[in-house]
């Protein structure tokens, strides 16, 4: 399919140079190459610069509350598991206020792809510390420097049961498009944490900074089936930053275990014989 199919008139409103453009494009390429019809794709987001993404792409979208994209997406998937459900959002949204949902979603293992535009800062609210900001980073809310260690989303995903755990980089577009495609194709919860520089508020973790550090796991003898190795690699950061798939696994999805979904998606199940059903159930009460 043509990438054009996934484009909309509205121009993305990110700052020139923002990493999120590459993420949008990667998604469009991946969807096209997977030949998905826009009507069968739903992109769910929260609030943040990154969470504006669904508005810039031709598919169904739900642009909800800050930090709550994951449960909304889960509800959509449970209601209609024929849909391709993708979550797109920021690091603050997903790893900060939404952290609990993120981890519970991974142990739930619905077939959803989560694309996080990790810029290590709060963009939309004009530059406060994010849960991913490095220790010591100076921001509007931490003028003495961040005192907390950053969350490690890759490691969290690994220990929480995600079945596809990867890191991308907005500065490496082709690689990112491929990762995105693999993530969507994967059955089960996939996390793609994307280092997506905020050129306005993060002057520390720039494209250049990443370029000096990133390497590709697939070119470094990494075994995606080896959890111990994946965990070890997930702790690399200062000097060498791995990109690519850390870990991949197959596990039954949540929806495949749910008995009421055996026959068809909920949304297609008829609701016209409820009176009979009620009459039958009332027997239990007499």
């Amino acid at each position, binding site marked *: 399919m043509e990438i054009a*199919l996934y484009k*909309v*008139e*509205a121009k993305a*409103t990110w700052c020139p140079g923002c990493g999120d453009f590459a993420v949008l494009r990667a998604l469009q390429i991946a969807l096209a190459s997977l030949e998905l*019809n*826009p*009507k*069968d*794709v*739903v992109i*769910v987001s929260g*609030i943040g610069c990154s969470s*504006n993404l*669904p*508005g810039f792409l*031709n*598919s*169904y*979208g*739900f*642009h*909800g*509350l800050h930090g*709550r994209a*994951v*449960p*909304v*997406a*889960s*509800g*959509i*998937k*449970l*209601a*209609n598991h*024929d*849909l391709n459900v993708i979550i797109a959002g920021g690091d603050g949204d997903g790893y900060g206020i939404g952290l*609990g*949902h993120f981890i*519970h979603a991974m142990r739930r293992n619905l077939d959803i792809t989560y694309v996080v535009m990790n810029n290590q800062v709060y963009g939309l609210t004009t530059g406060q510390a994010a849960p991913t900001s490095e220790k010591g980073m100076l921001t509007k809310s931490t003028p003495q420097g961040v005192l907390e260690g950053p969350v490690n989303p890759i490691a969290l995903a690994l220990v929480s049961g995600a079945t596809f755990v990867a890191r991308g980089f907005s500065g490496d577009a082709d690689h990112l498009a491929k990762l995105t495609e693999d993530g969507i194709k994967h059955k089960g919860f996939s996390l793609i944490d994307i280092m997506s520089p905020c050129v306005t508020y993060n002057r520390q973790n720039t494209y250049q900074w990443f370029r000096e550090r990133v390497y590709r796991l697939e070119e470094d003898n990494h075994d995606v089936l080896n959890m111990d190795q994946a965990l070890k690699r997930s702790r690399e950061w200062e000097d060498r930053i791995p990109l690519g798939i850390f870990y991949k696994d197959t596990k039954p999805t949540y929806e495949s275990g*749910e*008995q*009421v*979904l055996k026959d068809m998606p*909920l*949304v297609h*199940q008829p*609701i*016209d014989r*409820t*009176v009979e*059903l*009620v*009459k*039958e*159930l*009332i027997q239990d*009460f*007499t």
Partner: protein
Amino acid sequence: MPLPKSEVVVRTAGAAGDGIAATGETFAKVCSRSGLHVFAYNSYQSVIRGGFVWLQVRAGRTKVQSHGAGTDFLIALNSRELERHANDVVKGGGILYNKDKVKPKPGLIRDDITQYALPVLDITAKHGKNPILQNTVALGALVKILKIDFSVLSGVLSDTFGSRKKAALEANLAVSQAGYEYAETFETVDFALDLDYNTRRPVMTGNQALALGAVAAGCKFYAAYPMTPASSILHWLAATSTRTGILVKQAEDEIAVLNMAIGAAFAGVRSMVGTSGGGFSLMSEAIGLAGQTETPVVIISSQRGGPSTGLPTKTEQADLFQALGASQGDYPKIVLAPSTVDDCFSSIVEAFNLAEKFQVPVIVLSDLYLSEHMESLDGIDLDFSIERGEFAKPDVGSIDSKNGFKRYAFTESGVSPRSFPGRAGTVFQASSDEHDDAANIISDVFTDEEMRTRMFQKRMRKMERILPELAPPRLEGKNAADLTLIGWGSTYGMIREAVSTLGEEGMTLNHLHIKYMLPFHAKQVKEILESCRNTLTVESNYTGQLSRLIRMETGFDIKHQLLKYDGEPFYPGQIITKVREVNN
């Protein structure tokens, strides 16, 4: 009530873990299968084992609308409870207890009360050490005393334990039979219950009726996080999920619960959540989201004793303004409060229809007393229809392109035909940000003030359309009365009982029960109230929330208030006392 009495009130008192709830349910079913109307209330605390629990079943030849006051029979499961409750037993009543465990102090049980000391040890000896069997012994005896056929009790026990718990069933049957037989030595009591084994009303709690209402409405998705007194909705829907086809999801917290339900509704299924005040607080942000994205969703909030964690197992009606004020900004939503178990059922069907026709969140306010008390129903109203509201015509087959579809089209009614993912020709993005009719956000780059104003008005127009669809409140009872009692929610039955008791004494009273809190029938309520000679609200809260709502909506100042906030439901007697006071 003069003897022979046409109703009986049975109280079982013990500690949490003594199996009181199960005993009560069995007895309630026995009564119902004997053609009686039943009403039961369980007073308990949050401790899992121990504490002070009592459950009261009231059964009568005619409809009973509260758990009643004076106890005819007390089943005291231990000495402590015997002491606490002995004096609540009426003259001519009886007390059943395990004579091996409970030794009444001399003088504790009045002379006008019959003592039924049961030799539980003897009876249960053969059936292992399950202490809960003492309850079954007492049940057997009670059934005999009330002259109910033993087969009714054995039938209920068989249905309860089913074929899978055979050993338990056998033990229960045996000891209840022994209790029954032992009671043949007791003097019989003068009741005129008019048993009728051919009438069998269903007996259920408000929560079960709410859940059953969801089944009726074609709900397909129920999400919840456990919280008393809403948890039993979750339990029943989970237990019946494979029969009803409702997907039941316990999520990680209430925030996830409602956001999931909104996702499911956005994807096209009827979806519902249930919680209590604390969980409702957490949901409140997402209620606004549902309002703004025009996603239909039903939210049950069953009120309990507050504030904060408060009294988790006690009843209260103090979350009205929490529901009304939920989430920031002005947006369309509906708040309604069922008042009886029947009404619970119908209210959910109605809530779903309203939610979908108007694409709004609907909050159904229950309370612990309504949610958890058991009641026999004369029959549930099955004459309902499922109205899903307007859908946009899908443009089948076409490859989709966004923004062609005006999801939030400006219409006179304010309702814009909706669609959902998977449908061709209607691709759009729902957004919590303000948006135009084609669902493009206008908060980001250019806040078109005119568009904002029109979209706001479009949304709010729905509220005007909703009101005429709601049954206006009406005065029950005589039109010209000395006093009008006003209530909402679970106080319905007690108020009715008080009104009819006092009516028999010659007072002229009537009763206005408000179901729809938002939108509010301001005109009708004002008219009614202005026609009243005197007014009294009856509510389980401190600040008189209903009175305040009424004044806000109508300017009308209710004269008298009966407020209770100790966690226990009203007794008709309390209402009667207050009415007498006011009418003096």
